[in-house]
């Protein structure tokens, strides 16, 4: 073993240790924030609920006449039944799958495309920055949900198009945030060093610029999942998202609305489910931001 490889190895292990201690530090800071921990627990619980839906739900989500129609909550149907006699608890459990799935994929679309655009324009600057950021201004000039409505309206209402619509409308946010961080990173010495050893632009963007923009991306993504879930539910509520009979909270609300007088539980619980998820994500996102914000670090 030559001295050279030994030192690289040492460097790698200290880097790893550094990263671990950084994650540990962030976790320590989140831990003292009760709201953030509570939010994280709820998110984990709901994710578990979504994953194990088939084992947890007492009935199938689309099983008609599982009980009497429009029955109020009872022991047999803790959250009541809908106009087709479907068990609402089971539908809400299955609905968590769709909501979380749409939320995460939509944010994935927004963060990947937006993040990449932001990193590229922040790194290169100049003309490409001007052109792409003006394009982002155009996207931002249309209220987010209206842009999603237009996209879904044009492409047709289904799961894939819903995710695309919500994801695309999130792109400008990430592009702006990442661009701002990229601008501050690109002049630093390690970028210069990477360039000096002949790293390609793409490699610098992927290995030097983007990892240093991760903190704002992570915070924005957590809060973004909350707003994506809200948007998706709103679109489904308007009849422009997930279509019946799929169990989805927004479209359940829209169906339950017709029976508000006789069966208010049909509008109460699906909305409560949305509110809980969004609240948990916001609490965790806030805590994460405080933990990652260097201004608050002592």
């Amino acid at each position, binding site marked *: 073993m030559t001295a050279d490889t030994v030192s690289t190895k040492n460097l790698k292990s200290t880097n790893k240790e550094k990263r671990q201690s950084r994650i540990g530090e962030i976790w320590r800071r989140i831990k003292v924030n009760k709201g953030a921990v509570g939010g994280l627990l709820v998110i984990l619980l709901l994710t578990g609920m979504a994953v194990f839906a088939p084992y947890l739900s007492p009935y199938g989500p689309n099983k008609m006449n599982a009980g009497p129609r429009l029955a109020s909550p009872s022991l047999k149907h803790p959250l009541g039944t809908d106009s087709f006699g479907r068990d609402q608890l089971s539908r809400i459990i299955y609905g968590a799958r769709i909501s979380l799935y749409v939320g995460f994929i939509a944010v994935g679309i927004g963060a990947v495309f937006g993040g990449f655009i932001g990193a590229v324009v922040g790194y290169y600057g100049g003309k490409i920055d001007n052109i792409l950021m003006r*394009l982002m201004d155009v996207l931002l000039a*249309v209220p987010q949900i*209206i842009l999603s409505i237009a996209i879904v309206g044009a492409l047709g209402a289904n799961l894939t198009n819903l995710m695309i619509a919500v994801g695309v409308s999130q792109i400008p946010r990430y592009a702006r945030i990442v661009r701002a961080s990229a601008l501050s990173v690109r002049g630093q010495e390690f970028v210069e060093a990477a360039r000096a050893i002949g790293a390609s632009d793409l490699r610098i963007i992927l290995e030097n610029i983007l990892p240093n923009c991760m903190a704002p991306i992570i915070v924005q993504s957590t809060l973004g999942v909350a707003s994506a879930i809200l948007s998706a539910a709103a679109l489904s*509520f308007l009849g422009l998202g997930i279509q019946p009979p799929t169990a989805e909270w927004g479209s359940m609300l829209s169906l339950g609305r017709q029976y*508000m007088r006789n069966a*208010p539980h049909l509008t*109460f619980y699906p*909305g409560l489910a949305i*509110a809980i998820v969004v609240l948990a994500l916001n609490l965790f996102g806030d805590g994460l931001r405080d933990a990652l914000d260097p201004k608050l670090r002592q």
Partner: protein
Amino acid sequence: MWRYIFRRLLFLIPVLIGVSILIFAIIHLAPGDPAETLLGPSATAQDLEELREQLGLNESLTVQYFTFLINSLKGDFGRSIRTNNPVLEELLDRFEPSLLLAVCSMTLAIVVGLPLGVLAALRQNTWLDTFCNLTALLGFSIPGFWLGLMLMLLFSIMFPILPSSGYGSWEQLIMPAVVLGTNTMAVIARMTRSSMLEVVRQDYVRTAKAKGLNSRLILTRHILTNVLIPVVTVAGLNFGHMLGGVVITETVFSIPGIGRLIIDAIRFKDYPVVQGGILFFAFCLSLVNLGVDLLYALLDPRIKAQYRAS
């Protein structure tokens, strides 16, 4: 100052042209033929052809777009496919309810959110602070359409004191304004609180205290004027979110505004109305953003000087 306003108004043109291209592209890349949707499955080939000719759907996309652009610059957004009325007329007809709703909601959000944030900061780490934070967090997380339905359930069905939907009387405006204003209220309360906490620790506040100024004067003259700037920023930024909320609130409460018009138009594939409506929203949003920037100048003499210089 006027030159600044004029320049900013000029900047609106490329953005709005960009929006028009974006919306045009989204709508026209969509599968499905509006002529078929409009006439239904029983239409003959000849009927379809005639309608396509009449709507200009046979031209190339570029020609269609430039016709649309040139006409809209003249204030002609085409005619609604569904009602055959000029789109501009439809939009203006529906403008009042949307505007009234937005103004009431924003007023409500400011009137509740600002004092909430101020109180929370003045009594930091007390139960009042916790209460304000919780209210803000809930207001931020509750979906507007659900809040609307729950208010309806409570105040129209269980205790029938407010009308559940419609437009025309002030009673009908209460619930929609609360629903639409809640999110912005929460945002304003949070921003006011954090901005207050920062400002009360500034040297000039300490100086004001040291020279024996009474605390009310310190709050109104020294603290609030400085707190307002970031608050105005987030309120302005949130206006776009609010315009989106208009669409949902109007649908929940059956208010005949522009938001509802757009949703109906999308369902019927009434392209000219969708285009015109979204362009109209983008225009409003840009104007509000400009208004917010000008408000800074009013609030902060430093910024005013900057505008003058530029």
